[in-house]
């Protein structure tokens, strides 16, 4: 489906890019941290959109669920619990300009090293047939594939949960 040269997908991609990068800039530049958390959510929502474009609906849904439903809330909570800092006079430390230069250099390096080699190639995927969510599910629990990392991940989550509780609870 095209309207002139602009495909729906390209349009969607542009929209999600604006969300993602705009949201990211919002996170980095915002003075107000609750706003920052909202920007983060916007940005991550854009990333979820990318996943949809890349035919990974499961990841998109998990992205929304985990980031927006859980991590976003968590950040908002943290910001509110440590409220006195929501309006800092100085957003950035002294090294912000070196950091800016470094980040731009990092971006340039990524473009140079990762993107230039594939530029112009891979206009389309090698196949339109894509593994389904069911395949992912099988792979995650299959003994030939990722069952061990999967279990380790669950262990990690348990440990993180317990650790977070222990660290954050008030001393009695």
């Amino acid at each position, binding site marked *: 489906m095209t309207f002139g040269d602009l495909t729906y997908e390209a349009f969607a991609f542009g929209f999600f890019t604006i969300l993602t990068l705009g949201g*990211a800039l919002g996170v980095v530049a915002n003075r107000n941290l609750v706003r920052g958390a909202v920007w983060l959510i916007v940005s991550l929502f854009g990333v979820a959109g*990318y996943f949809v474009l*890349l035919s990974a609906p499961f990841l998109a849904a998990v992205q929304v669920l985990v980031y927006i439903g859980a*991590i976003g809330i968590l950040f908002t909570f943290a910001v509110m619990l*440590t409220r006195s800092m929501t309006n800092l006079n100085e*957003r950035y430390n002294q090294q912000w300009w070196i950091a800016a230069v470094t980040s731009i250099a990092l971006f340039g390096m990524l473009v140079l090293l990762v993107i230039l080699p594939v530029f112009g190639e891979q206009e389309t995927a090698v196949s339109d047939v894509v*593994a389904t969510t069911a395949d992912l599910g099988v792979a*995650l629990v299959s003994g030939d594939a990722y069952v061990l990392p999967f279990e380790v991940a669950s262990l990690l989550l348990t440990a993180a949960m317990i650790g977070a509780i222990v660290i954050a609870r008030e001393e009695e």
Partner: protein
Amino acid sequence: MVPLWMFLTAAAGLFAIGAYGVLSRRNAVAILMSVELMLNAVNINLVAFWRFQTPMDMSGQAFAAFVFVVAAAEAAVGLAIIISVYRGRRSVTVDDVDLLRW
């Protein structure tokens, strides 16, 4: 279809912005948020390469799923630490937390 390099460029941009946030923000929560951005940039790359090059192999998606796990764990523990530090020092400015120097 949107070509691969566009996804990669967007991810690189997201990564660089996140890196800038990590390197320059003074607030620990903001730093953690920026770290989340960087992790997501990685995820975009993983999924993009998966889609374009090995769409029948589950490694890309599986790794992205594990990144979710790591991100969730990181956020939980990181924020817990921040809250704990805040309780002790009434501040979440990372410049103030420099007991490790010298």
